[in-house]
């Protein structure tokens, strides 16, 4: 089937759902089924990275679930890179394009997606990557997913195709709907195409290790972030701080000499940063096997160690902290995050009464509801995915 026919079929299904007020679950490869306010503990994606973790099958035509689910809007057939010009630093792809295909095309020309989207051990679609808006270890240094979104095409609830932004770096015509859609979890409509800014892959990369307690590591991360160093990652686990440097070889070498530490073998370094990026680190495994609740805390990067039991996995120079907690501790991690000026998501395990996602401020929740009502008046897209009852 050609892509136009695929798109027409998607439009027809959306229009029918809108008319019949039937909910649709927008889905790519299914690597982020767990990433939802209404996700049960059972659907969390904590599996051994050696097994085929995605529920997405390799062959077309199968549905990811045991029984075909008519409420699922499977976007994988709408795939393919539409346009890629390395000298323009822009790639445009249909939503169902596997992330691996986009990254391979970029790697061929020495470029990459600098926000390092997580794949969770599988192969998400590029539409899912942007709809979730999650970013990897380079986020604090290169930017987040939303920082690289240049344009999106939206299939709205009435079956219309709308284009926002474009394929150029600077564009302030109209409201920035493209960035609004990044991280929107599909509640406003189906992202059918995205244009992303890409960057040249750094010429040189080095990883350094330092043995130090977490308090000292967070202080060092902040101190170094205030200096002109080519940082591209800063993480801590189990008494060891990991620093990644990226850029021109001369800059990386100079920074390495200045910072000291122990140089990490490139293979081991790649393994470490990939595990962080794709949420395949040991803490994810142990949370699952030991029935712990795994919390993801987004904090000001200067936040000193929190008084929560157990050591966190720290990423983003201190701004992202993962805690494997006793399920009995309820939403204590959320309270600690709020007190520090951040938010907390219950990533895996039974969600507390306050919800899996951190509750929105009332004024923001009201605006979200109004936007939802206007974009999707019958509430067909991903009901309950971002906010309960929405």
């Amino acid at each position, binding site marked *: 089937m050609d892509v136009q026919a695929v798109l027409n079929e998607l439009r027809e299904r959306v229009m029918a759902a809108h008319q019949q007020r039937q909910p649709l679950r927008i889905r790519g490869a299914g690597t982020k089924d767990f990433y939802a306010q209404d996700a049960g503990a059972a659907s969390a994606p904590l599996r051994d990275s050696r097994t085929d973790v995605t529920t997405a099958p390799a062959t077309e035509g199968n549905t990811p679930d045991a029984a075909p689910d008519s409420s699922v809007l499977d976007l994988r057939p709408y795939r393919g890179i539409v346009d890629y010009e390395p000298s323009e630093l822009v790639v445009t792809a249909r939503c169902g394009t596997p992330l691996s295909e986009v990254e391979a095309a970029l790697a061929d020309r020495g470029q990459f997606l600098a926000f390092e989207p997580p794949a969770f051990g599988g192969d998400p679609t590029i539409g899912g990557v942007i709809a979730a808006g999650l970013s990897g270890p380079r986020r604090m240094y290169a930017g987040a997913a939303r920082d690289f979104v240049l344009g999106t095409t939206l299939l709205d609830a009435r079956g219309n195709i709308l284009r926002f932004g474009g394929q150029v770096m600077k564009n302030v015509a109209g409201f920035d709907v493209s960035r609004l859609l990044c991280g929107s979890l599909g509640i*406003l409509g189906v992202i059918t195409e995205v244009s992303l800014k890409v960057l040249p892959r750094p010429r040189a990369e080095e990883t350094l290790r330092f043995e130090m307690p977490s308090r000292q590591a967070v202080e060092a991360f902040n101190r170094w972030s205030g200096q002109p160093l080519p940082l591209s990652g800063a993480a801590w686990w189990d008494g060891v701080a990991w620093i990644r440097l990226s850029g021109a070889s001369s800059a990386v070498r100079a920074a390495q000499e200045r910072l000291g530490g122990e140089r990490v073998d490139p293979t081991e370094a790649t393994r470490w940063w990939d595990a962080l990026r794709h949420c395949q680190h040991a803490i994810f495994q142990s949370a699952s096997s030991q029935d712990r609740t795994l919390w993801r805390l987004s904090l000001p990067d200067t936040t000193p160690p929190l008084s929560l039991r157990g050591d966190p996995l720290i990423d983003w120079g201190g701004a992202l902290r993962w805690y494997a907690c006793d399920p009995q501790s309820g939403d204590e991690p959320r309270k600690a995050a709020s007190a520090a000026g951040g938010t907390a998501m219950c990533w895996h395990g039974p969600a507390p009464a306050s919800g899996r996602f951190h509750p929105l401020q009332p004024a923001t929740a009201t605006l979200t509801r109004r936007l939802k009502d206007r974009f999707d008046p019958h509430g067909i897209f991903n009901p309950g995915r971002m906010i309960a009852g929405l």
Partner: protein
Amino acid sequence: MNQSDVAAALRQVLPDDCILSRDEELRPYECDGLSVFRQKPMLVVLPRTENEVRDVLVTCRRLEVPVVARGAGTGLSGGSTPHESGVLLSLARLNRILKIDPVARTARLQPGVRNLKVSEAAAPHGLYYAPDPSSQIACSIGGNVAENSGGVHCLKYGLTVHNVLAIRGLTIDGELLELGGGAPDHPGLDLLALVIGSEGLLMVVTEVTVKLIPRPQLARVVMASFADVRDAGNAVAAIIAAGIIPAGLEMMDRKATVAVEPFVKAGYDLSAEAILLAEADGTPEEVADQIAEIERVLQAAGATAMVVSSSEAERLRFWSGRKNAFPAAGRVSPDYYCMDGTIPRKNLGPMLEAIEDMEARYALRCMNVFHAGDGNLHPLILFDANTPGEWERADRFGAEILELCVRLGGTITGEHGVGIEKINSMCVQFSEIERDAFFAIKAAFDATGLLNPGKAIPSLARCAEYGKMHVHGGALPHADIPRF
């Protein structure tokens, strides 16, 4: 609502010295940086606190009086052109730097703080605020947020949206909104990104928290001459293709260098059809490597001459011409009209050719400065407003450039905003359904439509009118906008 009734209501909530109502007091506010559009506001208010801003909004909401927010008034698209029966809300008095946090590398600012002042305040800590619009000496952070301002370094360091961590402000209903925050990720929709660049249509910003970054140890710039603008355009693509992201990458055509050189004495090669400025920053080793590489690429791309800045003073001198291109245009012509389209870089050649053709057709000169690295063009159309018909020709010239930007896969505005100026061109770039989506967003934040009405998004009727005008040609655009 007449002026005295509104003034009386505002006097209930504001000190007298915060309200301007006399003709001579209102005059200075009748336009922003785009002076061809002038409209005297009904009233001007200058609150000093967030509470006073809220009181103004709530009062205007109750009386159903339009509100137009204004920062430093340097905007180039008429985004803060007043409304004839509205209140102009100046945020100029909210001008304090609330906190510079060198450890967290953030600055908490009131909206009236000038852009350059942020970097000056952060300098003792080795930090600065990256977005640097040419007007940075005067423009305010609040205005930068409203317009999502860029600058000459945004290819590497991003626009306002990439450098703002949080905003606090009020809706027309007086409701407090806090978007973003000290932590990098936030649950829910990215309303922070939506509000940045919303041109005062969604909320009034009362506080902005920005990211500060370490100042690079060193910056040097290569100035290269080209015998053909097309070669210069290809050289830009070659630099990017070589895997280099310069800190700045700018182009000026000969018409622009000839205009600025007598004014700034930057040392530009006036025999060149175009010059490129390519800046490298970082550690001394890194800069040396990158400069050598840029020189190699430019040489191969056909540069006829190259000079590398050998001191900070020389670097600033090379940039001074670029940063002063607008005032220089004002020296060689009584008036100029600055366009702001963005195109994919590969289409630079056809675009410049088309502009040359338009110069002949509209019988007006146009000089071109260009944020080449990110495809953002600033053609400066030179005209004399006192010569009958010249402004109308300049206006049509500009609209034709913008339509071509859209046809070439770009956009009508890269960093200056739509405001009132490019509102008709929005009909070309966006379909009715897309414009409806913008109105839906507007209504979610401001159901009354009182915040900056008539800007940024054209109504269906307006686009229908513009469509007709195209058919008839020659009709005066913006016919409904009063001129003085």
